[in-house]
């Protein structure tokens, strides 16, 4: 993509298709400010942000994967792997345990990346393998049990309030958003990701390192999933491989797509992804607050996904 094209894309880029998510987010927030009592309280804002943190972190990696026309179904299982590893290695001290947990996530991602980039298995099948096996591995590590973590450092990551009363996880998510944003917009790697998604054959013909880039992309997704796994474990004070990150791949994919990144690849919207995650979280919270049941809230979410993709459908093929 030349700078001229980028500029042209930027000029023509502001539309309901690409920026509708911000409008929708604005509408939901406005609705809540008007009609939901105790919405604009610090406590509630904190709660919503803490709850959405793991989804945002996972969705950032997913957005990069989707930009390469891929998909990563294994992120929830990777979260479970990271959580189980964290609990298993906590005796060696929190820093080492976290490092090992993150490493395991990156390794899981590398594995996916090799299957997609080198063996050239379709991403959905390649990551389906770890989707099924990963949580099993995590349960093997944890001997099928929930493991409480008493380490004070890990606990404080999840509970201690920092600036503005927000827990560390919120700041981690924020920093990662900035890092990924810079990565995709200003680095060669980011441009390669988009080029590969746009046309893998063209990227290969142009001499781009498609294989290493793909491996790196899935490693990044695995690493971010591990971060989410550590954060979720720290927040709940226990590693629960059966349930941590369960179905988060669906939430993450939803956030990415609602945020304006087409599943067909070749494009990425980092801020849109974060906005997409916030939007789905707020919609869910709003519906629950207005006495809709969990079941109804899911159904409404489904309709919103369809509507969002309907608006974007011009770009999806």
């Amino acid at each position, binding site marked *: 993509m030349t700078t001229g094209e980028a500029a042209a894309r930027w000029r023509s880029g502001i539309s309901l298709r690409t920026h509708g998510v911000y409008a929708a987010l604005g509408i939901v927030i406005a609705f809540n400010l008007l009609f939901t009592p105790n919405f604009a309280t610090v406590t509630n804002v904190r709660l919503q942000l803490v709850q959405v943190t793991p989804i945002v972190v996972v969705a950032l990696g997913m957005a990069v994967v989707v930009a390469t026309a891929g998909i990563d179904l294994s992120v929830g299982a990777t979260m479970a792997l990271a959580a189980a590893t964290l609990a298993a290695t906590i005796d060696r001290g929190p820093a080492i345990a976290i490092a090992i947990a993150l490493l395991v996530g990156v390794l899981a991602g590398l594995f996916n990346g090799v299957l997609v980039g080198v063996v050239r298995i379709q991403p959905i*099948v390649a990551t*389906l393998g770890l*989707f099924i096996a990963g949580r099993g591995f995590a349960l093997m590590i944890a001997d099928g049990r929930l493991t409480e973590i008493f380490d004070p450092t890990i606990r404080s990551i999840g509970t201690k309030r920092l600036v503005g009363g927000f827990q560390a996880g919120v700041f981690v998510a924020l920093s990662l958003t900035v890092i990924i944003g810079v990565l995709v917009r200003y680095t060669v790697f980011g441009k390669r990701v988009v080029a590969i998604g746009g046309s893998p054959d063209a990227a290969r013909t142009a001499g781009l390192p498609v294989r290493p880039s793909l491996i790196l992309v899935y490693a990044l997704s695995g690493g971010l999933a591990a971060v989410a796994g550590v954060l979720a474990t720290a927040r709940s004070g226990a590693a629960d491989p059966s349930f941590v990150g369960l179905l988060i791949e669906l939430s993450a994919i939803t956030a990415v797509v609602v945020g304006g990144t087409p599943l067909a690849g070749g494009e990425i919207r980092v801020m849109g992804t974060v906005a997409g995650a916030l939007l789905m979280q707020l919609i869910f919270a709003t519906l629950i607050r207005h006495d809709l*049941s969990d079941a109804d809230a899911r159904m409404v979410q489904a309709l919103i996904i369809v509507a969002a993709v309907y608006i974007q459908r011009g770009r999806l093929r």
Partner: protein
Amino acid sequence: MTSDIVARTPGDPPLGDIAAPASFGSVTSLIRQSAAGVVLMIVVLLGVILFGSKFANTGNFSNLAVASSFLAIIAIGMTFVIISGGIDLSVGSMYALAAVLAAYSSRWGSVAGIVVPIVTCAVIGFVQGSLIGKLGMPPFIVTLAGLLFARGLAFKVSDDGNTTHLIDRDRWMTNLGQERVLGVGVPVWIALTLFGGGLVLLNRTRLGQAVFAIGGSEDASVLMGLRVARVKIILYTITGLLGGLAGMLVAARSSSGLSTIGGGLELEAIAAVVIGGTLLSGGAGGLTGTLTGVLLLGVIQNLINQVGTLRSFHQQVVSGLFLIMVVTAQTIVGRREQS
């Protein structure tokens, strides 16, 4: 992979004796299709050697067949959708929804208990197919929304999961899940019948040819004058219907409808289809492979159950690694064949 779908005008009569789709002809897809069968034989042999008559007895095989029949019914529909180049993520939720609806509506009699879930799931499938076929929305997202919607509806019918509806013991619909005919469970007969019907539909009818053509090249199919949108609507309606049927059967088997069942079943079905040699990119594949894939997953689970000390998560690990190995082998063999 050589894409050698024979271009046929839609007006042609269904192929007679040479009905097997041309894609089966190439050596590559022959290897891909039979790989799962070979592995299945090895795994069964392994089971016989390791566990002897504890594994190889009619009672165990009969249980295995019934346990696999629900996934088989769902995987049949999934095979059609995947060959057409699509995907259906909603079937696991449809399965749960159908189970809940079957138990709920059995209060009005067995006919209602059977018809309501199947029709509801078929309607949801029809809506998904319309969004995909008519509006050109991506199947992955549409059926992801369907997954959420159907699961939400299942929870709604069961009061957010707080109520588990039961099927009264004297309703005859429970026979569909619990009875045996000629020593084989009714769900198995239903799955086998659908498998036979599916084989005919896929390999001997115009619809089947259209499914292969659309999966091979959608643009070419449009140019050939195939009614792509209509075919897609039919396919997603069928997968919904089959998901509903499987859920109804499982409710009949357990005399209850649980809203939490079937999580991840869609991915298990996809795994079975892929292990069976059907390409996720569409245009090639078959139902025999899918049935082999379903049985393979079932046998692995059964063998792990035989080892008393192993737990369900061990089965996940084995199944997942298995999927990766089979697909890796298929991909590498396929590439070598091509070059």
